[in-house]
């Protein structure tokens, strides 16, 4: 092996010149900077935050375990009429799971874990989901709340992937919106109890609403389903309340809560 000093002065200088020139040239042509006008391709669909991202922010607010417990509504029945209804319901049940984690309610988590499995079975997803529900129940027994939360995230993700594999993207959207509606109902209830502009800021979701609304309006089969029609009508009502610039006032939070609560009763309950 040649030592590092094998280069003579005559070859060293040009070599150094080349080595230095490359990054300088890159800097000069702006390769290390990206301007907004340079964006040639934009991904059409907005990346929706996972529930843990939202709950991570809520963890920083002064919400007590009892506050979360007061919101918990473990669904008892699961006799849905069709797959769309099951998918909406599954989204709601998973959202309830996140709430049960915040409430640190082991019994509720166990019930919800079992409920997730039975609803997933109706959608032909038992095999894919069972590993998550087992883990949820085990980790709840160990009071490992972060792990339970991660497992609910993983459940939601597995369900979406499996549905997409089976070209059931529309059902995957139903699971997402079911979770989002219930999540919005829970969050607005908590903000209403102890309002602050800092908390209500989380409800400013313009493009998220647009994403859900346009997606649901595009799907033809959705337009014939009375339950989905109600979801679309509800999203239309929520849009101006959650997309306007400025502070989301206490009155607006109350309106968002009322609409999402109504939506949960009419569309996410068997």
């Amino acid at each position, binding site marked *: 092996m040649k030592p590092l000093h094998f280069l003579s002065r005559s070859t060293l200088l040009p070599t150094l010149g080349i080595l230095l020139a490359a990054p300088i040239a890159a800097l000069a042509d702006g*390769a290390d900077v990206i301007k907004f006008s340079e*964006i040639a391709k934009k991904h059409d669909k*907005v990346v929706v935050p996972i529930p843990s991202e939202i709950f991570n922010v809520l963890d920083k607010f002064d919400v007590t375990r009892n506050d979360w417990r007061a919101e918990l509504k473990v669904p008892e029945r699961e006799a849905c009429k069709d797959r769309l209804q099951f998918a909406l319901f599954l989204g709601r049940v998973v959202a309830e799971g996140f709430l049960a984690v915040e409430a640190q309610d082991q019994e509720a988590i166990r019930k919800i874990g079992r409920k997730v499995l039975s609803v997933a079975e109706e959608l032909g997803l038992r095999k894919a989901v069972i590993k998550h529900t087992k883990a949820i129940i085990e980790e709840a027994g160990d009071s490992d709340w972060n792990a339970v939360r991660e497992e609910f995230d993983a459940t939601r993700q597995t369900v979406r992937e499996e549905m997409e594999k089976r070209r059931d993207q529309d059902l995957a959207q139903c699971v997402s919106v079911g979770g989002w509606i219930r999540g919005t109902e829970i969050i607005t209830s908590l903000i209403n109890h102890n309002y602050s502009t800092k908390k209500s800021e989380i409800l400013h979701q313009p493009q998220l609403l647009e994403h859900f609304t346009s997606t649901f309006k595009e799907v033809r089969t959705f337009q014939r389903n009375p339950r989905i029609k109600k979801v679309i009508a509800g999203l239309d009502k929520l849009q101006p309340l959650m997309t306007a610039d400025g502070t989301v006032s206490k009155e607006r939070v109350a309106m968002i809560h009322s609409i999402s609560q109504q939506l949960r009763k009419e569309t996410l309950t068997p």
Partner: protein
Amino acid sequence: MITMHSQLSRYRLSAFLFTSILMFSQAQAFVVDALSFALEGAEKHVSEEGGYTLRKDFWQGSSESGEGQAIKHHLVKGNSYWFWVGTESDDTTMAIAVYDKKGTKSYEGKIEKGPNWIGTQVEVPKSGTYYIAFKITTKNKEEAHWAVAYAFK
């Protein structure tokens, strides 16, 4: 083209990458490489010490050398985010920025770089949609395969 994928837990990442390389086509192997580089950037932040939670999804695609790409993302105020872009291409210059929906202001904070990845940290002033913009300029002007991952805390 930009597509979204999911990945296994980071603890099982090595096995996932190994199996993927064996099973996938060459193009898919590029993506696995790109993802592994993005996660190389993520490593210290998603450790117990770093405290960030890695989302088990990633976004992948390919782009011409120097072509700007962007992923539209709803970011929540109150969270601190890290985004990483990895590429299998060597000898590249990479750029990353976070823009609001109008593109009038960029919000990226600290930027970190490795040989095949670039990452930026961001805390947005208000919840809403932002563009995670990036550009990979290759020395030989060939297209680059890339993957984007992110974490939050």
